[in-house]
């Protein structure tokens, strides 16, 4: 069970553990001294606790995402670490202040009375007496941070969240469950280890300390297997003995946004690169904006993006030119403004299209988007769609304002239309489920929905590497919409692994494995 999950476990676990430990330790190092100062100074305590509380009310995923622009577009470990460290501050800080303020005033005076200096009183009386409360804060912080660390996947930091985000998008519930179970177990184990150390200190019981060290050892043990064993290189263990390896020694960082097609394409693109000796680092589950910013900053070497996305969300254009015009204009804009090379069009388009079931189409006589006008129907899409010009424009052109709208994750849209809960969805044209659910795509004669040609974007830095670009040549115009839809369907419907689908797609493209 979970064989696939175990294969990538060392990296995900090590990433998660490193992030969590670094964040908790930093939180501790900041909060305790700050708490000590604030406990004795009401003017400081109020603002400090206020700030920490405000940080705490920011949803974890938003705090993590915010750290990316705050750190100048940097993705990966540092923004995730910064957000989690901030997150760990409040419980420790609050408990340090409360714990210190709770020390009996008589005892504090007695401590001075017997001849302690202020510092001796702090170390010998205040902190030992406040310790149980401070440690309780530390335990709360640990559980929060280990849990929230699963959210660092979308900012490009590897963690147990990779299981969850990929699993959610590829409908691999086993992976989701696995990620949840491991991170929950880690949170509980860390909580108990801290508790053991606390008890051993309070009772001066060496056996409890030994048990604590043992527990910590168990938590860290999976890291050792990673250090000693051969590097688990994942899908890329093919050797190309005797071939020239012009990319040998180079690490190429690929972005995969959080949906099936992106996971498959990242796996696919890594193949020709690895064949030339490159090491591949896939940052998966990234948000669209995060991925693009990382491409600008050069932290990501390559990503697959779509002309319509760049056009609307990055260039903020609202007109809809023909497909070829949009392709050349986005390419030029990216190059001129960010030095990003729009290298290879992959050959397929993944656009929005209004889709209905065959029965609905028959019942209401639907053929074009305009036929939806004034029908008592509900349309579902991902939440961002209803904020985009695509929606407002089609709504205005075809008179769709009478439709009810519902935002939901694309993973669940298809079940919703199949069960009749909604009547219309905005399907992605490469989605394998269009065929599987026997959906009808409605014609859109006015061309209000922009084209979404998939292309590989290469960062300014990586674009200087000819060998890298040459490696991508086999992918140019290699994937038709039908091919992409079929590959997506393998994952979304047949429950194949991303790697198996990429294997199949690679075989279709190259005729060889």
């Amino acid at each position, binding site marked *: 069970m979970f064989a696939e999950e175990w294969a990538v476990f060392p990296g995900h676990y090590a990433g998660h553990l490193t992030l969590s430990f670094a964040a908790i330790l930093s939180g501790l190092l900041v909060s305790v001294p700050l708490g000590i100062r604030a406990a004795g100074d009401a003017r400081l305590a109020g603002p400090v606790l206020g700030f920490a509380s405000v940080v705490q009310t920011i949803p974890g995923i938003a705090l993590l995402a915010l750290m990316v622009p705050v750190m100048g577009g940097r993705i990966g470990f540092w923004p995730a670490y910064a957000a989690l460290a901030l997150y760990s501050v409040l419980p420790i800080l609050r408990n340090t202040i409360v714990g210190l303020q709770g020390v009996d005033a*008589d005892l504090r*005076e007695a*401590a*001075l009375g017997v*001849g*302690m200096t202020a510092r001796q009183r702090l170390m010998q009386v205040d902190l030992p*007496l406040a310790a149980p409360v401070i440690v309780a804060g530390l335990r709360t912080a640990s559980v929060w941070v280990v849990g929230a660390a699963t959210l660092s996947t979308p900012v490009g930091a590897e963690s147990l969240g990779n299981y969850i985000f990929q699993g959610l998008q590829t409908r691999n519930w086993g992976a989701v469950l696995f990620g949840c179970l491991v991170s929950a177990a880690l949170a509980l184990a860390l909580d108990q280890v801290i508790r053991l150390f606390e008890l051993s200190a309070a009772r001066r019981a060496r056996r409890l300390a030994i048990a604590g060290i043992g527990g910590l050892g168990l938590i860290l043990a999976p890291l050792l297997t990673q250090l000693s064993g051969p590097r688990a290189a994942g899908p890329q263990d093919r050797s190309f003995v005797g071939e020239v390896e012009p990319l040998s020694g180079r690490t190429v960082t690929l972005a995969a946004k959080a949906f099936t097609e992106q996971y498959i394409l990242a796996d696919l693109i890594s193949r020709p690169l690895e064949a030339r000796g490159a090491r591949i680092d896939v940052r998966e589950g990234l948000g669209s904006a995060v991925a693009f910013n990382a491409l600008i900053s050069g932290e990501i070497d390559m990503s697959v993006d779509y002309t319509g996305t760049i056009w609307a969300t990055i260039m903020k254009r609202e007109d809809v030119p023909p497909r070829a015009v949009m392709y050349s204009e986005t390419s030029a804009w990216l190059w001129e403004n960010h030095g990003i090379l729009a290298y290879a069009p992959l050959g397929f388009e993944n656009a929005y299209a209004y889709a209905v079931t065959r029965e609905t189409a028959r019942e209401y006589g639907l053929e074009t988007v305009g036929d939806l006008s004034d029908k008592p129907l509900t349309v579902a899409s991902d939440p961002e769609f209803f904020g985009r010009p695509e929606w407002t424009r089609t709504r205005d052109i075809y008179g769709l304002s009478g439709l009810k709208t519902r935002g939901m994750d694309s993973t669940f849209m298809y079940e919703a239309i199949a069960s009749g809960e909604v009547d219309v969805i905005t399907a992605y044209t490469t989605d394998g489920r269009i065929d599987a659910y026997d959906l009808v795509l409605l014609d859109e004669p006015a061309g209000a929905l922009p084209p979404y040609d998939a292309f590989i974007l290469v960062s300014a830095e990586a674009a200087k590497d000819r060998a890298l670009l040459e490696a991508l040549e086999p992918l140019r115009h290699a994937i038709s919409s039908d091919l992409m839809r079929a590959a997506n369907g393998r994952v979304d419907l047949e429950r194949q692994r991303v790697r198996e689908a990429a294997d199949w797609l690679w075989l279709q493209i190259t005729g060889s494995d």
Partner: protein
Amino acid sequence: MLLSARDLTKRFGDVTAVCGVSFSLEAGETLALIGASGCGKTTTLKLLNRLIEPDAGEVRLGGEEAHQLPAHEWRRRIGYVIQSAGLFPHMSVAANVAVTPRLLGWEDDRIARRTRRLLELVGLPAQAFGTRRPEALSGGQAQRVGLARALAGEPEIVLMDEPFSALDPLTKDQLIEDVAHLRAELGFAAVMVTHDFSEALRFADRIAVMQAGRVIQAGTARELIARPADAAVEALLEAPRRTAESVSAAFASP
């Protein structure tokens, strides 16, 4: 002269808590500061060991002025006992007693000997009580440990802030006796704050009556009873006098 306080004055905002208080103490002598709540007696006591810094006046101990030393070093030379005992709950009884010697940097041997001796003297032998936690002690036992802790650094003087107030009458009586024995054995001087004249009477060589931040009369108990300086002193003596009369009447009747 061991200890002298001269013209001690302390204001808290607009309130003058202590106003020009002066007194002195010979080695081994005991003084009780007595008065109603808010008369400034506890503030006066804390001015002596610099838990509160005076606005004016000075304190000398063995010829040395208080501010010639850092506050913590000054306090290590003066024992301090408070009403709630104030034992550190995370330390054993022995560790509580050893606190000041440790701060003074004594050698371990000497600390251990001193701790054993004091626990012995206050009737809580180290073998039975040394490793206990303060929470396992009765109120009287805790106050004895507090006393042992105050004496551990071999101070020449001990300050006691209502040390018997929280105890039941029998325990209080026993402890007052014990302190007398301790003084006979170790020979320290003491300043005690109390609001109970009979406690002061039994404990102290001299009594200073305070009101509104000033000492209004000082002398032996006999002198106060014979010649109360004013109505306030008289009022302070009234309750113990009545108690004494009814008690002696009760003992006199068959």
